[in-house]
């Protein structure tokens, strides 16, 4: 039986009827067609589905859409300000922090939370802060540099 939810995503409120078992990531991808949030695993490990819920990084595969009822979501699609990229988006571009791009939205959303709590992280802190996000393309080398680029720019 479907139940109503009201979730604000990237500043816009959506009222939908959903099955209680619907995961938030499917709500975003299938109900709202916001496909920038990806699914890379089924064990809450890879972090490709990372979004922000009320400003905090969340693996959106690990929450039911009904749990997010009344709350506010930011996805990768909501990070840029019009044509102006978020410093992390810019950093990933400038430092070649992405190859296939599949993990990138989750990386950026996780890094945004990391920088909020630690605006000037060391390399070690960045690497540790990414422990919930897998990348198979970059060896993480340039992802670290991308986050350092953003941290510098945001300082």
């Amino acid at each position, binding site marked *: 039986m479907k139940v109503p939810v009201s979730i604000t995503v990237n500043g816009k409120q959506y009222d939908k009827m959903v099955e209680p078992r619907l*995961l938030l990531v499917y709500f975003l991808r299938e109900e709202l067609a916001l496909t920038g949030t990806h*699914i890379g695993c*089924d064990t809450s490990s890879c972090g490709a589905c990372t979004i922000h819920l009320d400003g905090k*990084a969340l*693996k959106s595969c690990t*929450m*039911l859409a009904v749990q997010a009822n009344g709350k506010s979501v930011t996805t990768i699609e909501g990070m840029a300000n019009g044509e102006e990229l978020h410093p992390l988006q810019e950093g990933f571009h400038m430092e070649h922090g992405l190859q296939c791009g599949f993990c990138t939205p989750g990386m950026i959303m996780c890094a945004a939370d990391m920088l909020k709590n630690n605006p000037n992280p060391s390399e070690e802190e960045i690497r540790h802060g990414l*422990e*919930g996000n897998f990348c198979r393309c970059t060896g993480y080398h340039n992802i670290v540099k991308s986050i350092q680029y953003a941290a510098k720019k945001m300082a």
Partner: protein
Amino acid sequence: MVPSKFAYHKPSTIKEAIELLTTHGDDSKILSGGHSLVPVLKLRLNDPEHIIDVSGIESMGGIRDNEKSITIGANSTHGEIAKNAALKEHAPMIALAASMIGDIQVRNFGTIGGSIAHADPAADWPAVLLAADANIVLTHAGGQREVDIDQFFKGLFMTAMGEEEIITAIRIPKTPFNKNSTYVKFPQPASRFALVGCAAAIANSDGYITEARVAFSGVSATPFRDSNVEKSLKGSVLNEDAIATATASVADDVSIMSDHFAAKKYRKHMAGVYARKALSALA
């Protein structure tokens, strides 16, 4: 990655939650942050017919700094606990363990109540709560009871909770041993749960140990305090020799888990290594 169907309930009071639990009993599961339960639902390792979401119950949230204890609402996230000033001061191992759970995302939304109800023996909480002499506050239709942590973990994914009870809070006593405590972890490299998690809490008087609590996650199917280690430490001065003597017999009396990361022999050895690390940090 689709859970089986269930009905969803979101009570706003504990009373309401208990009523739902009483009505649906066996067929229901409590959900707080969902970071232990949702992964299980996604893989259909469990398929309850009713989910009772207690995250909206205000009285189950927050961390209260009382005179003799600190009460951690069951809905508190690992992240909140890691940052809490009172816990950092009075029971540093609690904040430290919280900071080592999962990753940023998991710490933001996973809750202590959900984690300990799940009772994964490789989770970080069991070791530190055992060492902390915590009490688990369980609420049922007739009222509340507090279970001593030593009586709480009963086996692999098993606890002393009754079917119609909810963990509403965790109480950490303000004691000298909690003030002088730490937690170290040897992570399983894939899941980063504990292959060995060791919490140690030591109270001293005039340089001699008056109380020692040393507990382990990840080593045995039931998290445990190691009484041999604790007895050996009591009355001695916490120095290299005392630590070596005490940790020589770590996990002698328990059945040790084994997997392809750590067979029994290695896991037992690492329990000793991490016990030494924890105790050395307090010396």
